[in-house]
């Protein structure tokens, strides 16, 4: 039987984590995502599933607890918001370099600096282009509903373990704070029968010691390691996910993810009711990015617009995919303000409608 609940996005992440059989959560409070750890603590996860939930002394500590715990091969995660995620970048780089699976949730707020506590999508570059030092990538999932906040926990772990790579849920204060109906996933057992060939369990006589490290003092070894990572990131393209709204006959295409995509769905509805052929492509994975489908769409639409709560970050990836074939515009509110469908509509009319 379906189990339905009315929940905040942050609470849905937490409940889904318990139900996904997550072994440990390490975190530090920050607005607008504090409900994740609050909800977890309230649920007594140590009794429900045996899950460890620990409040660390900082985001620096929590990501390093994740690093240590991920080396045991179990399911571990953390969550934070923009400034906290910035603090975690060194640890995330280590986790990527050491090739450990884990899940990180960023409920983005406006920046730069301490910025604001209102929703934003200005952490796109940090999330999909690396964030910390060195050549690495995260698997980046972009939920656009409370339902996807819940669903992407399990998906994030599935992909993280498939590639032995950190996965990031790139949410924002809007999806984190708003309440929606959500169908809760079924409770999974925590498992102890996972692949332990590479994890730190204690060296036994039948194997060499397992070492979790991102260090290669020999540049040739580090070069080979980097090539292996790049090959892995390339393979991730097979897991690209996106959703299309009214794209089949679209003359103009909006590209938007997360909360901005929800706003753009309304824009599509309004324009369609007026007979204007606008479609929406919603990337659900931002890395890997749906480059191929955007390149194909560029052959049949007259123009595209990336709509995001930033000064224009994802638009760069859209332009790379389009490769100059059609004009690509950007529209977006900055610093924690949210555009309304009417705001987007005005931009659409200004840029696209002249083309009719």
């Amino acid at each position: 039987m379906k189990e339905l609940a009315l929940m905040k996005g942050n609470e849905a992440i937490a409940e889904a984590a318990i139900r996904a059989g997550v072994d440990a959560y390490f975190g530090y409070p920050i607005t607008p995502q504090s409900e994740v750890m609050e909800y977890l603590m309230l649920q007594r996860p140590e009794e429900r599933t045996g899950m460890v939930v620990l409040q660390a002394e900082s985001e620096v500590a929590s990501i390093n607890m994740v690093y240590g715990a991920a080396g045991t091969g179990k399911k571990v995660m953390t969550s934070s918001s923009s400034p906290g995620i910035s603090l975690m970048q060194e640890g995330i780089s280590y986790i990527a370099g050491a090739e450990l699976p884990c899940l990180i949730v960023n409920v983005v707020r406006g920046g730069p600096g301490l910025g604001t506590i209102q929703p934003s999508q200005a952490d796109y570059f940090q999330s999909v282009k690396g964030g910390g030092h060195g050549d690495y990538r995260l698997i980046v999932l972009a939920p656009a509903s409370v339902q996807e906040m819940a669903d992407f926990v399990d998906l994030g772990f599935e992909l993280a373990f498939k590639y032995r790579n950190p996965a990031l849920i790139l949410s924002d204060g809007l999806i984190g704070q708003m309440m929606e109906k959500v169908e809760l996933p079924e409770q999974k057992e925590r498992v102890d029968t996972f692949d332990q060939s590479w994890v730190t369990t204690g060296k036994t006589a039948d194997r060499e010691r397992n070492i979790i490290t991102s260090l290669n003092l020999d540049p040739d070894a580090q070069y080979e390691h980097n090539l292996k990572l790049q090959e892995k990131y390339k393979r991730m393209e097979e897991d690209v996910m996106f959703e299309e709204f009214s794209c089949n006959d679209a003359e103009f295409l909006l590209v938007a993810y997360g909360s901005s995509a929800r706003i753009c769905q309304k824009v599509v509805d309004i324009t369609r009711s007026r007979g204007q052929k606008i479609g929406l492509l919603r990337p659900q994975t931002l890395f890997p990015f749906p480059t191929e489908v955007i390149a194909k769409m560029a052959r049949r639409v007259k123009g595209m617009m990336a709509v995001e709560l930033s000064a224009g970050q994802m638009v760069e990836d859209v332009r790379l995919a389009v490769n100059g074939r059609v004009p690509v515009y950007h529209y977006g509110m900055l610093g924690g303000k949210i555009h309304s469908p009417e705001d987007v509509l005005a931009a659409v009319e200004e840029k696209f409608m002249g083309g009719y």
Partner: protein
Amino acid sequence: MDIKEIIREENKVYCRTPLLTDAILSYCPGCGHGTIHRLIMEVVEEMGIQSEVIGIAPVGCSVIAYDFMDVDFTQAAHGRAPAVATGIKRLWPDKFVFTYQGDGDLAAIGTAETIHACNRGENITIFFVNNGIYGMTGGQMAPTTLEGMKSSTSPYGRNSKTMGPPYKITEMIAQLPGTYYVTRQSVHKPGPVRKAKKAIRKAFEIQNEKKGLSFIEFVSNCNSGWKMTPNDSNAWMEEHMFAFFPMGDIKVDGKLVPST
């Protein structure tokens, strides 16, 4: 007579523990790290817990400690070893988890992680090698560099007025209720080596009994960084380092040892 004839089985009175690997130590001749590595691995061998031990390597001279100690290892970011150890221990509460950290790592960049892991009473063991200097990066001033001591970033001697004085993090963390056993040792002579080994054994036994965090500081030398011969560095250490960092137990069975 060649070397094989010399080290025949019947002539053997001492050998290193098999838990040290065949890798050539990357430490300078005269440095204390190799001795401390050996003592930890001897205790692990004697307790028969190799298959239960996970070590955390720091950033610093001992960054590749995992090349020499034949146990599972995780290499941590600079200063973060206690947080990494916390993550592992919380998921493997029945395994033995230890960190191995230098003074810059533990007492400067990692101060917060050190204090909070100690305060939570994580059931782990922290090995703290204090040589009063940043060794690997070339002898810069550390939080434990003595007043007036020269280093590459205090070339005219540490001036406490402008650079802050050295501090004793071991005495600080001993004040926290989460620490169960806190001691300061050295490995520069046979007597102290034997005492240090007993302390290591005690620390692992405390972890086995789940009594809380044990913390062993080894005051050690850095003859290269101090620009001395190994013998001179040990004499200098006894005279100056031990005066500021006195040897002995600071907290036993969860109780502070009254200072004499």
